[in-house]
């Protein structure tokens, strides 16, 4: 996001407005994010162990059903109108875990149902999460490409 250069009048106003602007409570938000995010991961850890001990998954393979279960839980929380309150309180603590990704997709799907399932739900589902998928896939492509080439050329 580039900022246009401001005129002197605009800069003067910016200073005046900054005096009155309510500042974000950064420390409070970080503490809340830490607790909410940490707790969500603890729940994830419990689910992982559940799958290891009751369903014969290994530590490596339990990740997949764990993530699916977490997203199922976020569907329930989103659908019952709880996740948005969790988000206002926990900020990044609820947005950064994979449940936040689920919430982004599911909330968009639920919201746009009024426009029909094909154009509304289908066309808008990835409004928020699309960038994560795009940049995840592309950066993985670049990283894996570089590493593979380095291996092929015998550098590493």
């Amino acid at each position, binding site marked *: 996001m580039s900022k246009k250069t401001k005129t002197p009048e605009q800069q003067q106003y910016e200073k005046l407005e900054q005096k009155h602007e309510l500042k974000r409570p950064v420390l409070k938000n970080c503490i809340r994010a830490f607790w909410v995010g940490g707790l969500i991961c603890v729940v994830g850890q419990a689910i992982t162990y559940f799958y290891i001990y009751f369903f014969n998954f290994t530590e490596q393979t339990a990740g997949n059903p764990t993530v699916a279960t977490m997203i199922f839980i976020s569907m329930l929380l*989103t659908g019952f109108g709880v996740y948005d309150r969790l988000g206002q309180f926990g900020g990044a603590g609820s947005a950064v875990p994979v449940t*936040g990704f689920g919430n982004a997709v599911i909330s968009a799907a*639920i919201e746009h149902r*009024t426009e029909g399932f094909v154009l509304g739900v289908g066309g808008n589902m990835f409004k928020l999460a699309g960038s994560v998928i795009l940049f995840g896939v592309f950066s993985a492509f670049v990283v894996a490409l570089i590493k593979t080439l380095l291996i092929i050329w015998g550098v590493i």
Partner: protein
Amino acid sequence: MLKGKQSWVFQNRPVIAAAGVSGGPFEANGNLSEDFDVLHDDLWMGEDSYEKAHRILLEEAGQTALNKANVQKEDVQFYIAGDLINQITPSSLSARTIQIPYFGVFGACSTSMEGLALASFIVNYRGADHVLTGASSHNAAVEKQFRYPTEYGGQKPPTAQWTVTGAGAALVSANAAGSNLPVTTSATIGKVIDMGLTDPFNMGGAMAPAAADTITAHFKDMQLDPSHYDLIVTGDLGRIGQETAYELLKNNGLNIDREKFKDCGLMIYKDDQPVQSGGSGAGCSAAVLYGHLLNQMKQGTYRRILVVATGALLSPLTFQQSESIPCIAHAVSIEMT
């Protein structure tokens, strides 16, 4: 009649014959619920989408105003309305229902006074006997369009404001002798002011310069002193915008009594409602003025008020394209005869 650079004086003194105000569940729990004519207990209002519910709000406000004034819609010459939704479809669809020749206007949250100014001008010059004007907003429909799906767990900063689910409509009519109705006496049309702010979660800070500019222009054009009014009320500057505008006005040499400078966005909700910096939306100024403030005027609390509705003229696209937020404010003065 043109006065000064950008103001009109309505020398034939058009009256607000009646007004109607509708609101949603949040407003029903708010500070001014007594002054609403229609209140809904959910956001759907019996419709199957938020956008359709949005239209219902405006239709109800308009119909209530007509009922109270005992005027049939066939006798109303024009309908001026607007809202925040793309292509102002809720207003246009309400015009389809009400079947009055229609001007759709867009001033973002300043739409209410834009409509009232135009309605008063038309009636003043006998372009109509009656003009119905209104503005509305719906929290969920606006959030869906401008920000995030309503169930998304995004975190609003303390500078954010809460879009009012509500509508206000007024019937502006030619003055009749002996009526004890509020009169629209003048209006000042605002210019677009852009001070380079870019944060869509801080509308108040972006709009304050526009409010200050229009208020200053009003007093200059009309050659009046702020003490002429019992109340100067802005549309939805919120906590930050109001404080900032007050300082700007002082810097412009206008000495306004702080007690007489209020904001609709700060009046409509209770302190314990989670609205961060206050209410906002095209329906905010309309609902507060056409309900609470007019009632207060009829009870004698205020004799002369200046209502300055403020709007932020951005779209979701302008933000993504790194454009700053242009704002505007329109002022209308209302006096009891």
